[in-house]
Each structure stands twice: as C-alpha cells, then as structure tokens.
C-alpha cells in the first residue's frame, strides 16, 4: 500500500507513557495507519534517526480566542510542538455573544487577559453571535487543531443580558442557560469554563461569579449529558480556600459524572505548603471517585511592565496604577512633578506584595529599551539608580521619561520558581501540565515554550520525568482528561498529529519581543529549540529549517463521548 508519509527509524514515544522503541510511523489520509515496522513506500519519507516522534502536544489552557481570528496557526505554539489548543478558559470565550455586548466583553477580556486594545480592535472582525458561527469564522484558516471551551460568563450574558453582571439567575434563566450550553456543545465546544476569582475592567466580578451554586450545578448536569469537562479558576493562593474549591469540584464531578480541572496549581514563598496540601486533598477526593485535575505550569513567573498602561505589576501600588491611567501628557507632567514623584517613591518603599509573588523593583532590568535607553538594555534598576545617585522609583520613572515612556522593564522568577520542588509535583500522576495562558498577557510576559521547558528542566535537568512520561503528560494525559477524540496517542486510526524533536536539545528559547500583532503591536514570545518537524492531521505545519508552511489542516476537534 502506498502511504502519504512514513517517519522511519525514530524513537517512538507513543503518548501512553510506556517504554519507547525504535520504529516507524505510517500516515495516510491524515490518519496514522501503522506504528512499528512499516513496510512499503510513501509519497514522503522522513528519516528521524536519533530523534523522538511523539503525538502532537496539547495545550489545555490558552486564550487564543481572539488571535485565532487573525492567525490560524496560533503562533508560536505550533513551533513548540503543540498541535491542539484549548481556548475559552476562565469563563471567557468570544461566543456566544450578541453584538450589543461586544464592547463589554472586549473590555473584560482585554483587562483579564492583558491584551492591547489596538491589536484586539484591529485584528477582530466580529462575524458571529452564536458559538457555531464563531467556530465557522475560524475553521477555514486553522493550521492548528482547536478544542474550544465556552465561557460560563458568556452563557450568562447570552441569556440574561446586562443582568448577568448584577444578580443571580431565575429558574427559567437557568433552564435557558442549560439549553444555550447544549447548543454550544453541539456546535463544537469541548466543555465549559468558569471562574471564582476574576474581576472585569470595572473591578466587578465576572458574570460567572454571580451564579448561585444551583446554577453551576445545573450547567454541570448538561456537561454530564455530553461527557464534557468543567474548567475553573479557583483561589489558588490559599490552601483552605483551594481545598474548599477542590471539594466543590469533587462533588460536581461525582454527581454528574464529569471531569473537572482547575488552573493554576501554583507554588510560591507566600504559601510554601499549599501544593502539598492541595495534592493530598485531590488524592482523597480521587480515592472517593471524583476527577479533579489541577493544572500546573512548568515555567516560573516573569513579568514585564512599563508606564504606558496599568499592568498586574502595579496591582498593589494604587498611585502607580492611577498614574498609568492618566492621559499621556498629564502623565508626563505628573511623573516630573516633585510632589507626585515623592508619593510614588514612598509607595514603592512600602508596598504590599501581590498574592504569591516576590517582587523587588531594584531587580527590574531594562528589557525593551526605547531609542534613548539602548545603552541601558539588560541593566538593573539597582545599578542605574546607584550610578545616578537616585531612588529606584526615580530610576524607573526617569529612564522611561527619556524615551517618552516606551521603555519596558522585566522582572524574572517572581513565583513558582523552586524548580526542585516543582519537579516532584510535575512528576505526580494526578497533576496535569497546563495553565500556560498562551495568547494572553502578550505585552507582560511570554506564555510560550512551556513544553520545551518541561524537557530541559525536568527531564534533562532534575530527571524527575522520563522522556516517555513527559510526552505522556503533554499528550494522552490531556486528551483523555478533556475527552479529545482520537488524539494524544500514536495508534492506528488516530489523527496524524506528530512532533519530531531532539530529546537532547528540546527547550524554549529566550524571551524576545516581536512586532507581529495587528495595528503594529508588539508582544513577547519565545522561539523553540530542538523541535524538528510538526505535522497536523498528516500535513507538515512547521519545520525547523523551513518555518511555518502554508498547510491549513487544523480542525475543530470533536469530543470523544
């Protein structure tokens, strides 16, 4: 038989977590047809000697909802070996949404996921209201597979209108939300997302947070009808709160026979025992029949900030936050005003740490300099302040002023950075990989490269995971949890989503800024290292030598149920 593609002589890691073996993978019509020793010929033969072939990686926690409208490749996720993404997390998707709520949802989405307004507005051409119409709007241009979740906040807005932001739902409205959710699931939603923590652009709880427990219960009953999953953001910074949320999710899981997942499970100096306590609670609930899977990200927290707009770095610095909100000329005047500068200086000396982070502004470095501060690139505020004989707040302000506020600063490893400790948690079978946030926070930090980082830090570095285990956690572990049909394994009949990588070299590259957002916007990304080739449904989508291809074989992936 003639095949479309044979990958020969590879180290086959099939996603199951079992031992790898040297062999071949044969592909025809976008599907895997043989794994092992594959005889015959093919239109294309790839010699992968010395390389691993694995199922394409799956990223279960992204916010690519908007980017997919202008970039069906979800760059740069594909080049990191990811062939399937889940957008629509944390109660926020872009559908179903009536035209009159686009401005509101856009402002909420941009605030929570930190998307620049210019890029969001320029790149989004709203052609949909229903979930099915959104799926149709992105389907044609996809080079990556998409398993979209629908946001609970969107379902509330769809049914209740503006009241979704004000009050609990009536029984009739809950019934209408159940029907709206059914319609989304029939149209391709992989599950529903929620939030117990997020606040919108007006500092109000997102609509999902105004749901009484009976509303969430009713919607989970619908998820149970479809075998679909619930994703939610809990109070991840406090062990007692997190355990209470795990209990609530466990009850919903058992009652409705659904899988649940929360993100993130986050380690920090502020609550060093939290992850261990949460894991014990999850083990207890799992032993009693619940499925509650935490998502842990592989990378530490890095943050960037500048003085052009409010950013999470200033969350506990109200005067800095208020200053960034000023019109540009007023802001420049305030930043030069001695009285205002004294206030900013005092605030930075006595500020309260944001939850779970350890910030020292003296450690900030000039990350993306303007034309007049090129010579300062990479230098810390501590050094610059010492050299100029000024306070660190003044150094931050003055370097920014010298470039009309265009200078961006970086802070690294602020939390979730004890890799020896995290190595053991990531090796736990009950802890999933996720919470990466691809497509979000684009000017604050790079949300890409967590897959490569898993191998470089935890397979090659701490050696707490084997290559096979790491592949399993990025593939079948996620496909199985989310109910993603026919993906996550190298198995005849499964979709030919494949990644070929060098196990000795796979990694994330350094964080860089690129000017590839609509309206000439910039964002931070990371390029991949060690990823040789990526195939989506049997077609090459990326190669290290050739970059991204013209293939648009990505699909809206169906549920396994």
């Amino acid at each position, binding site marked *: 038989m003639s095949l479309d593609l044979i990958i020969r002589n590879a180290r086959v890691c099939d996603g199951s977590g079992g031992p790898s073996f040297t062999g071949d993978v044969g592909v025809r019509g976008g599907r895997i047809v043989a794994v092992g020793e594959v005889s015959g010929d093919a239109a294309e033969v790839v010699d992968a000697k010395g390389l691993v072939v694995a199922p394409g990686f799956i990223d279960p926690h992204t916010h690519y909802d908007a980017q997919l409208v202008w970039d069906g490749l979800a760059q740069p996720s594909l080049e990191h070996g990811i062939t399937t993404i889940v957008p629509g997390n944390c109660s926020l998707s872009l559908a179903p949404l009536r035209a009159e709520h686009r401005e509101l949802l856009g402002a909420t989405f941009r605030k929570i996921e930190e998307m620049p307004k210019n890029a969001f507005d320029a790149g989004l051409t709203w052609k949909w209201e229903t979930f099915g119409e959104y799926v149709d709007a992105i389907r044609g241009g996809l080079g990556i597979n998409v398993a979209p979740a629908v946001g609970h906040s969107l379902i509330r807005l769809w049914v209740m209108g503006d009241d979704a932001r004000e009050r609990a739902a009536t029984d009739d409205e809950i019934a209408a939300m159940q029907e709206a959710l059914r319609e989304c699931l029939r149209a391709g939603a992989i599950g529903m997302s929620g939030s117990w923590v997020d606040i919108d652009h007006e500092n*109000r709880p997102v609509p999902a947070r105004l749901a009484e427990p009976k509303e969430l219960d009713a919607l989970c009953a619908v998820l149970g009808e479809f075998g679909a999953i619930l994703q939610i953001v809990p109070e991840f910074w406090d062990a*007692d709160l997190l355990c209470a949320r795990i209990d609530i999710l466990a*009850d919903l899981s058992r009652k409705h026979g659904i899988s649940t997942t929360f993100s993130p499970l986050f380690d920090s100096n502020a609550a060093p025992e939290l992850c261990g306590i949460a894991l014990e609670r999850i083990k207890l609930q799992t032993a009693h029949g619940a499925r509650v899977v935490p998502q842990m990200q592989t990378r530490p927290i890095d943050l960037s900030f500048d003085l052009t707009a409010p950013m999470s770095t200033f969350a506990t610095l109200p005067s800095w936050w208020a200053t960034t909100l000023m019109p540009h000329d007023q802001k420049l005047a305030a930043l030069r005003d001695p009285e205002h500068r004294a206030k900013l200086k005092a605030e930075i000396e006595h500020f309260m740490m944001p939850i779970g982070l350890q910030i020292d502004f003296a450690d900030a470095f000039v990350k993306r300099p303007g034309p007049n501060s090129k010579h300062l690139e990479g230098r810390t505020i501590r050094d610059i302040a010492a050299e100029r004989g000024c306070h660190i707040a003044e150094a931050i302000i003055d370097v920014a002023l010298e470039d009309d506020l265009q200078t961006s600063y970086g802070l690294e490893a602020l939390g979730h950075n004890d890799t020896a400790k995290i190595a053991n948690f990531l090796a736990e079978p009950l802890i999933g990989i996720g919470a990466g946030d691809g497509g979000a926070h684009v000017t604050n930090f790079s949300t890409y490269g967590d897959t490569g980082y898993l191998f470089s830090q935890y397979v090659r570095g701490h050696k707490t995971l084997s290559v096979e285990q790491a592949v399993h956690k990025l593939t079948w572990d996620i496909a199985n949890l989310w109910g993603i049909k026919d993906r996550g394994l190298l198995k005849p009949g499964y979709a030919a989503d494949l990644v070929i990588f060098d196990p000795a070299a796979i990694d994330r590259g350094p964080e860089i800024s690129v000017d590839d957002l609509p309206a000439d916007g910039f964002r931070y990304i990371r390029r991949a290292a060690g990823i040789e080739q990526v195939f989506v449904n049997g077609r090459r989508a990326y190669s290290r030598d050739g970059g991204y291809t013209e293939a648009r074989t990505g699909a809206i992936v169906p549920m396994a149920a």
Partner: protein
Amino acid sequence: MTNNAVRIAPRRNFIQPKPGDSWESIATRELAGTPLEDAVNMLKSWNLYVAFRPVGAITPTDVIFIEPPRAG
C-alpha cells in the same frame, strides 16, 4: 453544595451564601448563640479575602469559612 452520597469532612468548615445573604444573615444562621456584632466580626476575620475586597459585596460563588483556621 450539590447532593452527594460521599461525605468527606472539609479541611475547614465553610458555606456558600444563600440569595441575599449578608454578613449579618450568615452570622445569625451559622453562629447562632454568639452576639451578632461579635459573630459578624469573627466571620469577617475568618474571611478577609471577602471582607477586604475593594468592591466589598459577598458573591453567590464565594466560600465563607464558618470557623477559624485550624492549626497545622
């Protein structure tokens, strides 16, 4: 909370608010026998993340602890 055959003791006792609940109504219901003002203050001290919220209102999805943190 949903109905469930499995009962696992919580790590720390909590409730989720009923429609229209306030600190006073929760205190009256959950800490009956304690003077109201004391009960409200106790509840707030056990739930600082709600009490000190910038936009102060209790939301229906909140977890409200009805006992202090346990040792250990």
